């Protein structure tokens, strides 16, 4: 009886400890984001107040209105940056996924000499730090006259994304049983038809998440963009964020608002793909 009671007590204590631990962990994870959103809605006076004002007295969307109402008022041309980011990210994602599908299919379905070496080689091209790559690219782009253009950025981002897209798509094609496509071929499909009618539809959710992942990489990339873009012609949002710090004082509220604008598409897209993403990355973990 006594033993039972103490066991029950221990278990209850463990449950409470688990809850508390979980709560604290989630708090640490979410707090910075919440703080940014909150700060973007508060007047600058409150952000700067000493002693700090913990409970917001008034909320307003002035920062967002100012940001989207043009150069003179918001300080920086956010709309141009937004458009550049969108054009560059979407185009390079489309190209990277097309190339990645071809490559991923080759890795998943064919056996050929030097396969694992080639896979590692592809991955190694991805390890080159953006800043290290930016030096020769900067030089080349100046020579070719495509510095500070959409084309140049798209080209760089396609190369940046292809290795990872191949990895992901390879994983998704591997999850599609080989027999299905073979059955289709026995029934008279060509390999091309079998791919589009059987394997592609099955791998589509995975490919979509690879696409979203590529999009997010472009959307968030900074090291290359900060060197290869110069003006509103091609500056992307992450580079634009630095505009707020370039001045002598930092406009914290404006920066927070821009941060929220940058994070919302990322948030929505990641939420959509979360399940497939993990599946694609880990499909090679156990099976090899």
């Amino acid at each position: 009886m006594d033993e039972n009671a103490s066991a029950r007590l221990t278990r209850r204590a463990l449950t409470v400890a688990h809850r508390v631990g979980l709560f604290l962990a989630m708090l640490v994870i979410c707090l910075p984001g919440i703080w940014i959103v909150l700060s973007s809605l508060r007047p600058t006076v409150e952000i700067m107040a000493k002693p700090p004002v913990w409970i917001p007295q008034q909320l307003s969307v002035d920062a967002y209105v100012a940001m989207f109402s043009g150069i003179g008022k918001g300080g920086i041309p956010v709309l141009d940056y937004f458009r550049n980011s969108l054009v560059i990210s979407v185009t390079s994602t489309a190209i990277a996924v097309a190339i990645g599908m071809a490559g991923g299919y080759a890795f998943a379905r064919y056996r050929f000499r030097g396969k694992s070496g080639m896979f590692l080689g592809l991955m190694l091209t991805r390890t080159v730090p953006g800043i290290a790559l930016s030096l020769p690219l900067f030089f080349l782009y100046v020579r070719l006259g495509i510095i500070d253009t959409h084309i140049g950025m798209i080209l760089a981002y396609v190369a940046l994304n292809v290795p990872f897209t191949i990895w992901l798509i390879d994983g998704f094609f591997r999850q599609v049983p080989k027999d299905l496509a073979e059955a289709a071929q026995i029934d008279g499909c060509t390999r091309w038809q079998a791919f589009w009618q059987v394997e592609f539809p099955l791998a589509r959710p995975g490919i979509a998440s690879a696409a979203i992942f590529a999009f997010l990489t472009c959307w968030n990339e900074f090291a290359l963009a900060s060197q290869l873009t110069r003006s509103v012609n091609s500056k992307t949002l992450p580079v634009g964020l630095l505009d707020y710090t370039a001045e002598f004082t930092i406009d914290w509220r404006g920066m927070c608002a821009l941060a929220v604008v940058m994070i919302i598409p990322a948030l929505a897209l990641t939420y959509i793909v979360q399940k497939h993403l993990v599946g694609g990355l880990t499909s090679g973990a156990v099976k090899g």
Partner: protein
Amino acid sequence: MKGFKPSAPFLLLLPAMVVLAAVVVLPLILSLYSSFTPFRLTRPETFFVFVGFRNYLSILTNADFWWAFGRTVLLLTIALNLEMLLGLGLAMLVEKATRGQRILRTLMMFPMMFSPILVGFQFKFMFNDNIGLVNNALQSLGITEDAIPWLIEGHLAFIAISIAEIWSSTSIFAILILAGLLAMPKEPIEAARVDGCTPWQTFRCVTWPFVMPFAYIAMTIRSLDVARAYDIVKIMTDGGPAGRTELLWTLVGRTAYSDARMGLANAMAYFSILLSIAFTVYFYNKLAAARAQIGAEW
């Protein structure tokens, strides 16, 4: 006579290879060449002067470079190990949760959606000595009277950067390790418990070997873009104060674009590339080994 007929995988991989050759390999060859010249952006004619290993020699004797190199390795070691431990802890906490798994998993992915530049910015804001959340909280709770100069004092700045880096990347580990925990067969754990293993022994000898490949996948993915730390440091301290938080990558950027010494910067860049490659190959091999191990056991 039949012409050359390339195989299907070759054709399929051709576009990827062309793009990578044009945008990664060719520029890297170019930068390898220019690391042997005293090339300065402001004086194009220096591109064709060959100086042998002089850039590399001057790096070897450059104290700033070695400090940055050591600091980079230190940051990566601290960050990767802590991320792994915290990620493991977080994954196990979430796995134990009986209700709300889905929402917990979504919340867990939250930091992954932040681009490194945003992470840098939000921590710059939070660690601001005057209006930052951290100092405000410490002062309101009465823990300290003075404003702690988080980003102004060298060691504190390094700690602040590490925290930002760890915050942003722990979730990658947590998610992949959680995927491993969920994919794990339950029988071995029950068998271990029946055989009288303590929880720690069960974890050490059953759970951990199974989860290890997933942890190494996370490591491999992370090592593919360890240089993300550049963005964070660039915006948080820009290598300051007085170069105390200068990492290899910020040093390369500064040498190339502020000092316009491209040749020297390229030589430095090659060190950072080798560092990244070393990390990736190391974890890739670990992954293969871990995979072989559980392949043998299950």
